[in-house]
């Protein structure tokens, strides 16, 4: 059965750390980093990259469009 794997790339300088992407992620992939960017915001990162399916939910709710989503089909 075909399975999908995804990954996100967060533009850490654009991310404002609003955390809106966290509740919409069904797989709890995203959390906020302890580091801050140049503006002083904690930025989003993939804490749990294995679970990402590339559903784009996080990217479409991101007000600053800091998230780019990649997805591949892998045969299990």
């Amino acid at each position, binding site marked *: 059965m075909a399975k999908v794997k995804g990954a996100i790339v967060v533009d850490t300088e*654009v991310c*404002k750390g609003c955390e809106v992407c966290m*509740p919409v992620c069904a797989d709890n992939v995203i959390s906020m980093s302890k580091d801050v960017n140049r503006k002083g915001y904690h930025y989003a990162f993939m804490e749990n990259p294995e679970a990402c399916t590339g559903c784009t939910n996080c*990217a479409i709710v991101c*007000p600053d*469009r800091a998230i*780019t989503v*990649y997805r591949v089909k*892998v045969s299990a």
Partner: protein
Amino acid sequence: MEVLDIIKPENQVFCKTKLMTNAALSYCPGCGHGTAHNLTMEVIDEMGIAEDTIGVAPVGCSVLAYDFMNIDMTQAAHGRAPAVATAIARTWPEKYVFTYQGDGDLAAIGTAETIHACNRGENIVIIFVNNGIYGMTGGQMAPTTLPGMKSTTSPFGRDVKTMGSPIKMTELVAQLPGTYYVTRQSVHTHKNVRKAKKAIKKAFENIKLKKGISFVEIVSNCNSGWKMTPNDANKWMEDNMFPYYPLGDIKVNGKLK
């Protein structure tokens, strides 16, 4: 499979649209304006009408929309965006003209322009972002502020006896014969974003039909003005704004629902 094997250009399924400039958005973290800007530009990009679209920016938080939207834009005096859009649409009837306005701009100082543009049935799209407060100037009470809601000019909550009830602009303009498509959406979760995108797309497609104005309200948060974190503000919006401003289509193809 490693993450670096997935992150390749051929696997990319979503990225920021080219019709948004690289200027950093001036909005607070978590503000619905950013999502609404991006959705509008994504729809224009998908329809391939970027060359033929002219936007009118308002006064308010989104006054700098012309810096962020990489299409032809102009900026109107406070509340006068529908009047400016009327002029543009009548001069170039083949162009796609839209205004992007907040609640202070559209529902307070621009009420007359909004209602008369809707009544005349101008061939434009109005995108109305309603967050129930004047965000840019520091969280003053707007016509759309909910009863009992605190703002800097109603510190004990809005009292409907002295300050009146919140105005439902979208229901109001839906009664006018000039409106063709009137809907209310929100952009705080992925489901609502997808619905809002469809609504904006339908609104821009309606311009081709030349049947009247399309009015899309987006109920949004103002976490700085409401003094909440973005996720708390979204929750508060679901609990308090949506009962008063119910989401959904109000008028489709010129017929009230």
